[in-house]
C-alpha cells in the first residue's frame, strides 16, 4: 500500500490537476463547467482530473440537480504537513544532493 504522501504527490504532480486543486482552494466550490472554462482542457479531461483528486481525498463533490459541485479538502494535505514526514523529506533531498556531490568529488 502506498504511503499517503506518495498518493498526494502523484496526484498533485500533474500541473493541470494541481491548477484545478489550487483554484478550488482559492475560489471555493465550483462546477465542472466553470472549471473547464479556465482549465485549458476538455470537460471530460477536467472530470477525470477531479476523479483523481477525489480518490486522493483532495476534493469532495456535491450533486445538485444536473450539476456536480466540487470543493477542495485542504485537510487531506495533512500527511505532507506532518513534521516527521517533512523532516524525512528534507533529508532525502539532502541525500540526493550528497549523492550528486560524491559523484563530482575526487576519489
Amino acid at each position, binding site marked *: 500500500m502506498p504511503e499517503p504522501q506518495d498518493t498526494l504527490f502523484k496526484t498533485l*504532480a500533474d500541473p493541470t490537476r494541481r491548477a484545478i486543486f489550487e483554484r478550488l482552494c482559492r475560489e471555493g466550490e465550483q462546477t465542472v463547467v466553470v472549471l473547464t472554462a479556465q482549465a485549458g482542457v476538455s470537460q471530460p479531461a477536467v472530470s477525470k482530473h477531479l476523479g483523481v483528486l477525489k480518490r486522493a481525498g483532495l476534493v469532495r463533490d456535491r450533486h445538485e440537480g444536473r450539476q456536480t459541485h466540487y470543493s477542495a479538502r485542504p485537510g487531506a494535505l495533512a500527511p505532507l*504537513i506532518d513534521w516527521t514526514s517533512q523532516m524525512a523529506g528534507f533529508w532525502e533531498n539532502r541525500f540526493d544532493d550528497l549523492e550528486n556531490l560524491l559523484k563530482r568529488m575526487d576519489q
Partner: protein
Amino acid sequence: MNGTSSETRTVIVEREFPHPPEKLWRALTQPHLIEEWLMKNDFEPVAGHKFNLRGEWGGVLDCEVLTVEPDRTLAYTWNFAHDDPAFDLQSVVTFTLTQTSGGTHLRMEQAGFRANQKQAYGGAKAGWQQFLGKLEQVLATEG
C-alpha cells in the same frame, strides 16, 4: 501530533552510496563540501565545537559537535531557538557510516522532536519547499 509535549520523535533516513566511507566522511565534515549538499556552515570536526548552519530560507541553526569518530560516526546538535514553542527545536543529528561491499551505508538519525511540533525551521520549511520544488522532477524519473 496529539502526543504530550515531553514526547520525542525520531526521523531516520538511510541510503547506500557507491563510495568509500572516507569519501563520505569528507563530504560530511569539510565545510565547503557540507555547503554543497546541506547548508552554509562554519563546521569543524572537533567535539565541543559550536557552529551554525545557515539555510537558504534565512534560518540559522545552532549546532554543537558531539561525536567525531572519523569514517564512522558524526553527531551534532541541531537546534533552532524560537519564542513560539511550535517552532522551537532541540534535536541531535547522528550520521553513522558503515562500509559495505559496494560502498557505504549512511544512516541519518535525527532525534528529539517534541510531538507537538508540527513545523519547525531547519527542516520543515526548507524540506517543504524543496520537496515540492523537486516533486515533478522526481516523479518524472520514477516514470
